[in-house]
Structures are given as structure tokens and as C-alpha cells.
């Protein structure tokens, strides 16, 4: 089993807002970055589960836009985890949402617990 949480997040979110790992590769808003530290769980036959606390941060100069993008990400992730395509491979649970504004840039952080099982 190969860890693919980042790939899944990117595939689901990249159509909503420019989506990057750790650091934005753009100078224009809006964009989102994500961070996570996966933890592997093993039997003697190999990895059977990977969990991670995932932090997705949406940045925008407009509060409404930031909220709309964050809501779209939440909706897309909820929909993905409920699809037959996912087939139970990923379980996502929203843990917390925080909102802040620094020098006119709004940040909405979505904290998820993610479990990959296949």
C-alpha cells in the first residue's frame, strides 16, 4: 500500500482553487496550500493503514471568496468520500475550521483527520 493522501487531496481540490503542497507556487490570490504528516500502521505483511492530520489553508484577499472556496473544498471532499469510486479507501473527518485575516489576506484553515486503508 502506497501513501496517496496528497494525490487524492490535490485531485479533488485543484479544480476549485490553485492547490499546492506546503508552499504556494503563485503570487496571485486565491490559492490553497495543504500540509500533513502521514503515519503508517503495519502488520507483519505490510502497511494496512495510514493516518494523517491534514491542514488545508485557503488564502484570498476577499473574505467571501475565501469562505466560498473553503466551503467548496469541504463539499468536494465530502462528496468524494461518499462516492463509489472512493470505495472506502479514504475516510475524512473535519476536525476544526479557523478563520483569520492578516494584512488584508483572509485565511481559512480546515483541519481534517484522514485515514487511508487500501
Amino acid at each position: 500500500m502506497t501513501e496517496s493522501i496528497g494525490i487524492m487531496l490535490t485531485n479533488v481540490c485543484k479544480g476549485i482553487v490553485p492547490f499546492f503542497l506546503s508552499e504556494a507556487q503563485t503570487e496571485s490570490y486565491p490559492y490553497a496550500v495543504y500540509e500533513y504528516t502521514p503515519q503508517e500502521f503495519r502488520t507483519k505483511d505490510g502497511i494496512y493503514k495510514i493516518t494523517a492530520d491534514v491542514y488545508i489553508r485557503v488564502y484570498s484577499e476577499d473574505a467571501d471568496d475565501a469562505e466560498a472556496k473553503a466551503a467548496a473544498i469541504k463539499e468536494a471532499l465530502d462528496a468524494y468520500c461518499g462516492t463509489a469510486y472512493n470505495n472506502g479507501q479514504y475516510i475524512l473527518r473535519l476536525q476544526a475550521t479557523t478563520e483569520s485575516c492578516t494584512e488584508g489576506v483572509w485565511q481559512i484553515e480546515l483541519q481534517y483527520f484522514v485515514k487511508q486503508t487500501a
Partner: protein
Amino acid sequence: MATSRPEGYNISLTIGGKTLLGRTQEDLSIAAVTKTSITKDDQGVQQEQVVRHDVTFKVAALLSIDDSTSTHTKLDRDDVIALALATGSSAVVAVQYLCTGGATYGGNAIITGYSESSSGDVDSDATISLDLKITGDFAAVTNGNG
């Protein structure tokens, strides 16, 4: 002379030729059973003599169900429960204890205990645990590389 220290996943216990599905831990214990004796010639110091060994295994695994219709290549939870509930000669299973680079040991065993553990915590894994005791000889059936 080369030495090796196999990782834990290179050590396995087979029961009837199969390992447990989702196994996470396999423990071997060899305990000497001794007889204490003392004669006048021992001048007050008790003597211990090993008369046999109690060889036991404890296996832990994730509670796993193999719902494939073909013959299972590993023992799932229901296979293990069936073994644990067996009686008479059916309760005796052949076991082999393998270690990469080392000798393989074999013998017959009975299952002396089976337990399951599950909780309502989110994302917790249900687990099973199996206790076995060797009946009769437990000896090397193949030599190690060393």
C-alpha cells in the same frame, strides 16, 4: 563469520501451514519445568533438574475477515475461531516457527485460548489474540544458514 538480525516481519508462525491474516505480533516462550531434589550428599543445597519444557506461542493480529470464496491462503478470524473450538484430535494442529536465516522449528500444538478485543473508539482496530501450547516435541526441522 556473518551475523544477521532479522526484522520482526521475517519471523512467522504457521498453523496448519498458514499464517494469521493481519498478524502483528508472534511471541514464543520456552519455559523449563524443573524437579527439585536434595540428598544428604548435597550438603543442604537443593538441586534443580530440567525434566521438560513448556513451549507456548501467543499471536496477535488485526481482526480480519477474508470473504473470498476461494481457499484462504491465510487464517482469518473465522478460521481461527473454528480451530479454537475444535476438540479431540481435531484440536491438534501442526505448527512451524520460521525465522529468515535461522532454523525452522516444528511440532504439534493445541489452542489454549482465543480472545477478541474491540472498542467503540473512532478509528480503533479490532484485534484478536491466540494462545497455543506445544504438545510433544518441538524441534528444528530445518537448519539455519549459519
